């Protein structure tokens, strides 16, 4: 469970978040929309404890992280996977080392166990063949997928996505969104998807995964599936929440700012 209670954040003279309060229940997917500079990515950095709020409380699994030390935050971060906008892969490390980075740092598993986990996560994103490549040899879409694999190592309960589809072609974008849906519906993770791409957000809000007896998965649209009911939207305007509700409520809204996204 993630909860923001009256969070304020300011950089120099610029107020980025103003009295932001919301709650995300276990298994829920929160999609945060808003124009550039509206404070979307700041919310993710606050959840990870990369930056601290000026005031207010941020609760992760019931624990307020706003006053925690860096050492205490490491424990919180172990339960959170983060997918960065451009992948943020370490240039000097191979795909294998990037994906297994967290486990190597923890030093609790043997090399063969780390290798098995890396292969499993790369298999999930369909990139086993890229295991020995360096980030410079990967396309933009492949970098994002490796970024997702890295975030999934250690099976985190919470996964944060910072505009993972930005700047990608429609086919690659679809691949990334399908991975997110698969993760939501098969692993049941709590997730926050920050974007200004309404098309990608609408796919997440309207499609879900079904698996047949042989384990083959297919994407279906619409219906009253629980995973779709667990999707919620937040819209940010100048650092404040101007809308919170379901996909349908957002699409039916007549508020001019929201209409600039939905029309």
């Amino acid at each position, binding site marked *: 469970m993630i909860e923001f209670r009256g969070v304020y954040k300011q950089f120099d003279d610029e107020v980025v978040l103003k009295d932001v309060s919301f709650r995300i229940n276990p298994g829920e997917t929160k999609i945060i929309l808003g124009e550039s500079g509206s404070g979307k990515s700041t919310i993710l950095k606050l959840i990870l404890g990369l930056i601290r709020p000026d005031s207010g409380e941020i609760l992760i699994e019931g624990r307020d992280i706003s006053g925690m030390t860096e050492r205490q935050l490491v424990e919180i971060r*172990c339960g959170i996977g*983060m997918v*960065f906008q451009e992948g*943020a892969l*370490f240039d000097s490390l191979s795909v294998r080392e990037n994906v297994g980075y967290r486990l190597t740092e*923890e030093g609790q598993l043997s090399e063969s166990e780390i290798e098995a986990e890396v292969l499993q996560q790369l298999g999930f994103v369909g990139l086993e063949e890229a295991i020995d490549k360096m980030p410079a040899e990967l396309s933009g879409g492949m970098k994002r997928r490796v970024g997702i694999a*890295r975030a999934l190592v250690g099976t985190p309960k919470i996964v944060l996505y910072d505009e993972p589809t930005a700047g990608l072609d429609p086919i690659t974008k679809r691949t990334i969104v399908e991975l997110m849906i698969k993760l939501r519906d098969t692993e049941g993770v709590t997730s926050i998807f920050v974007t200004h791409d309404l098309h990608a957000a609408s796919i997440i809000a309207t499609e879900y995964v079904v698996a047949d007896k042989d384990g083959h998965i297919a994407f279906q649209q619409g219906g009253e599936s629980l995973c779709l009911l667990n999707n919620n939207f937040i819209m940010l305007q100048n650092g404040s929440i101007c809308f919170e509700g379901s996909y349908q409520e957002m699409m039916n809204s007549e508020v001019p700012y929201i209409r600039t996204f939905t029309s």
Partner: protein
Amino acid sequence: MENLLTRVLGFPFRFFIKAIFEIQSYTLLASRAIANLFSKPIYWREIILQMDRIGVGSLTIVVLTGFFTGAVLAIQSEGALRRYGAVSMTGQLVALTLIRELGPVLSALMLAGRIGSGIASELGSMVVSEQINAMRSLGTDPTRRLVTPRMIAMVIMLPMLTIICDTVGMIGGWIIASYKLLISSSQYWSDAFNAMQFSDLVGTLSKPLVFGFIISMTGCYVGLRTHGGTEGVGRSTTQAVVSSSILIITADFFLNNLLIYLSPMMNP
């Protein structure tokens, strides 16, 4: 209160406050990097890698700098020494100038350009591409992983490079002394070694320790504070070289004074 003072005193006050904050942040980063030496994990692989990059990678420029500086010293000293009939003392002049001053300072300035800029641009690129944030989100302290190994590598390798620079510089001076000034090799080398005192050796080894610390910490500090995309990386790179160079020359002044003060205690 701060707003009122800012309005009244304007730019000098803002500059002063900013400078205080910069010094505070620099000191905090440096103290954290040193404190990491006394707790686990220590990234040995990264330390060895950085030592190779800094030491082996900088060998060519340090050798060339030392050689030509020694040679130029010998050529330039000829005119002044001949006036007093003391051309035979070229070895002494080259050795003392190199070991006391030029060897440590020139090696440090060369490494500030080559390594300081490299550290700032590497860490700056990692900041703007969010690799530093990714590292923190994966549970790693970037100071421990990136800053401490560079600091250790630099503090170990710069004294070694300085010794090489001094040695090659003296060889450069010897070649000029032998073939141009027609001084015998035995006179050049005996003069050079006899002129050296224990305090000179302490100076030539202690100065690079301080300079190495300055280059690595300035590069890391400026790199980790990069903002503004690729343009910001370029700015950080320039700033790292300029700041390191100024700090090296300033520190050299104070170290020289300290060594002169201590030399009677060190030399029997």
